[in-house]
């Protein structure tokens, strides 16, 4: 079985000369299709940087990153743009919803531009917000807003769903619900999800855990039997 993602000696350096910061150093790993991957690491380890490179939001400095056959290092700005548009869904710690649009419109915003988009209302139904589609973000709780953000990412029907600290701003219970959504998504669609977190406790839910420290891969382990989110306590 071929790898869905293969990263080889990926290096990301910010700035030049004496001010240069190397956020990722020679990172290499492989991700198989249908995996729920968790990238773990302390603050400043370089997790977000790695995720941004994987999501085509940033150029890598050297090495190679291949996602679903696309060589990201070879893409120009517009190429990355198209890659983001067609293949990637993003979920952030801060939900980044457009305040002026209703829930359903926020999801449509993404669905509009994706080629194989799923219906916005359907996506919202999946995250359990069917009744709130006409509400504006300000009328929703943080968890609900994050669910809208997830629905927005899922509506694009992407090959790869990336989440950077998706539960960072949420309480324990709400966070669990969110993580459940990701796990369900992977199981139901067979697509890939990568979650970046510094919460070591959620490790058991993943198929694959990559630990990053100081910009380098510290550990790369696969979980033969992932635990359902509901059974994890932290």
């Amino acid at each position, binding site marked *: 079985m071929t790898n869905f993602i293969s990263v080889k000696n990926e290096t990301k350096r910010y700035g030049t000369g004496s001010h240069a910061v190397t956020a990722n150093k020679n990172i290499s790993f492989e991700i198989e299709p249908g995996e729920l991957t968790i990238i773990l690491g302390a603050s400043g380890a370089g997790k977000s940087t790695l995720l941004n490179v994987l999501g085509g939001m940033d150029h890598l400095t050297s090495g190679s990153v291949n996602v679903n056959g696309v060589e990201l290092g070879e893409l120009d700005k517009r190429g990355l743009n198209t890659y983001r548009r067609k293949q990637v869904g993003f979920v952030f710690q801060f939900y980044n919803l457009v305040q*002026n649009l209703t829930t359903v419109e926020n999801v449509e915003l*993404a669905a509009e531009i994706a080629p194989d988009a799923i219906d916005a209302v359907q996506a919202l139904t999946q995250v359990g917000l069917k009744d709130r589609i006409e509400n504006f973000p300000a009328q929703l709780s943080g968890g609900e807003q994050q669910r809208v953000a997830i629905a927005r990412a899922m509506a694009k029907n992407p090959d790869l769903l990336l989440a950077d600290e998706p539960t960072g701003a949420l309480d324990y219970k709400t966070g669990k619900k969110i993580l459940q959504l990701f796990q369900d998504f992977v199981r139901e669609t067979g697509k890939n999800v990568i979650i970046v977190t510094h919460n070591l406790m959620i490790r058991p839910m993943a198929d694959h855990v990559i630990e990053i420290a100081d910009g380098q891969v510290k550990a790369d382990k696969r979980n033969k039997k992932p635990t359902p989110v509901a059974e994890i306590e932290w």
Partner: protein
Amino acid sequence: MRRTAQKTYNAERLADVKVTSTVSLNAKDRETVRQLSGIKTAEFGHTTDVVIKDSQHAMRIQSNPNKLSKLTITKGRKAHATNEVVLNDKLSGKYKLGQQVTFASGKTGSTTGLKRQAYKIVGFATSTEFLKKDSLGSTSLGSGTLYGFGYVTKSAFSSSQPNVARLAFTHPNGQAYSTSYEHHAKTLTDKLQKKLNARNKTRVAELRTELNDKISSGESQIQNSKAAIKTASTQLTTAQQQLTTQLAAAKSANNATAIAQVENKLQMLKKQSSALNFKRESLDTAKSDLAKAKATRNQLSDITFTVESRNNYNDGYNNYGEDAQRIDVLGRSFPAFFFLIAIMVSFTTMQRMVDEKRIEMGTMRALGYTKGEVMREFLVYSITTAVTGTVLGSALGLVVLPRIIFRAYTANFNFKVLLLAPHIGYVVVGLILALASTVLASWLAARSSLKIIPAELMLPKPPVNGSRILLERIKPLWRKMSFSYKVTARNLFRYKGRMFMTIIGVAGATALMITGFGIRDSLNTIVARQFGDISQYDLVTVYNPNASTTAVRKAQGAVKNSNQVKRTTAAYFANVYATTNGSDTRENIALMVPKSRNQLDQYIKLRDYKSSKKLSLTDSGAVVSQKLAKLQGASVGDTINLKDTDGTAHKARVAAITTMYAGHYVYMNRAYYQKVYGKAATPNAYLVTLKHSTSKSVNAFASHFNRQEAAVETVQSRETKKTITNILGNLNNLILVLVVSASLLSLVVLYTLTNINVSERMRELSTLKVLGFYPREVLMYIYRETNILTGAGILVGIGAGYLFHAYIMDLLPPATAMVAPGLSWINVVISVGLTIIFSLMVMYTMNRKIQSVDMLEALKSVD
């Protein structure tokens, strides 16, 4: 501007009114003038129009004024000796000090009115009586316009009696151009004219008795000498016959003594007959003298004694005043828009500044500063901005701009330096508005922010929450709208204030550009329509039908027999005027009564102003030009008062109103004229169309005509054209300044608003980028609404421009000119095009800003 003029008038003591007369003023006339009430000073002088020898350049030569309408010597000195002259400053390029200039009479068979012909130039001068550089005034000589003027000593004139008087009011009731002054001048002038009319009557009566005596004594003398000559000549003939018989008898008798005697007698007889011949000659002169006296008596009715206020005797004074008024019109309306825009921009900017300082405010509050202390920081800042802005603005507005405008405007006038008026009032208003928009805005914004608890204040301001919009409630429509338009609709109505500001800004720019270009267009159409479509003649030549028969015949011949003339028709032509209640200005009217009613259409197209149907002259009333009817508030069927130069009024019914773009005209047929004036309209003029209507050939023809003894004046169509073209030239710079500043302001509005919009929505834009929107899509996400607003602004602008243009054109053009309503589509296209170009420029810079946003950076922070 007015200040400058007022100061110069005061310095030269420009006469308030001028009394002119067609004949010289005798002691009694002068006494009458001196005794006029309301007059403080009266100064008498001489004036005569001559031409420079061997040219057709008409010059007005006047005696040196001492008290009123004094000269400003620019070079050299005043004329002291009888052989010295001071010329107008403009001629200093053509003549040098010390050079000789020789004058000649402009008409055959008349004199210059000066003792000498040649004068030495001793100086150059300007006078406020001749304000306009290029058109000094009209004359009956040369091409019809003065080429220059000169001042000589009183003793240089051949007549000892003056023919002009300059007067100064006891109470001028204010400065030149002020309503109170102009009103006083008008009412007093009207009163004076009545007095002078009375004096003129007695004067004419006196002259008539004088002439009658002269004529009757001359006639009886001629009678007597005729009889004497007759008897003498019969006696001579008899004597001659007798002597011839005697001589024959003496010869046949061969009587030598007798022959000698008879021959001697014959010799004497010859002497007597030559004496008789001499008597016959003097009889002839007496006869021609008598004829002259009779002709003079015929022309007695032409003798006038007129008094005119500055506005009427001084074209420059009038035009300068009108120009200043024009600037007032523009100056009143444009700044209103500028202020509006400026207030809006500073208001939004200040609010935005307070918003941006929010976290700082929160920190300060958390550190224990009181609300007042935090507020003070903003107030100090905004007051500083407002004051600095007002100071800079005042410098620009009171010093720099007036200079530009003044230079543009007075290019045609003889004013040297601009006197700047410190309009404290405007500065104060400006400062108040500036303070209101900046200080009030920051105070309001800061106050509302300070109400929030400091902890919350330290977080960024939450974006304005989404809300339902009206459009959404119209379900069928909303459902049909494409997604991007739904988003646009929401954004549009999110910030209503900004929405209106954008529309106003864009609309203002478009409207001002349309108006600016429209003013130009409209004035251009005046020229094009008046001289292209309506007026088909080049000039009117007026002669005196009461002059001696030969002189009249010669003057007529100069027109009828000229090979320059394409066609011509005879008419009665008179200068009359009308006044309107409540206005102090006279509308000068050309009254025309064509001799042949079906030929007029070849010279002037009289068309109904509404239906454009051809009009013909009827027995039931006059055809009146459109602008005159408008100024008089007269419509078809009303009557208007036509006044002669001496103020006598005649009532005429308006039978039709004709389209006319420049000048006031009243046309009547002969029967109707007879009815109104109670006398026949004896032709005294020709409407002339020349083969070549270049200014050179028109001038040459006019000069040729004006040389005729009976010539009175020529009225060139080109002169009106020149006036309008001049105004146009003056306005162009002004309009440019206005249009450029309007466009710049709108650019600023558009930029500020879009900039704020983009800055506030950075997060949104970053989200779009992360989602994979292409740069173009991101731009359009923001710009679709801006474009719609710009479009709406343009539409509103076209409407507003149309109205504003109509409003300006109602006030701006000279009183004699009528402006074609409406705008050319080219103008609209250019204005709209420019507005679009401007907004594209803003869009271009905004696009760069939008595209350079670091999406990751923006998304890192909290919501």
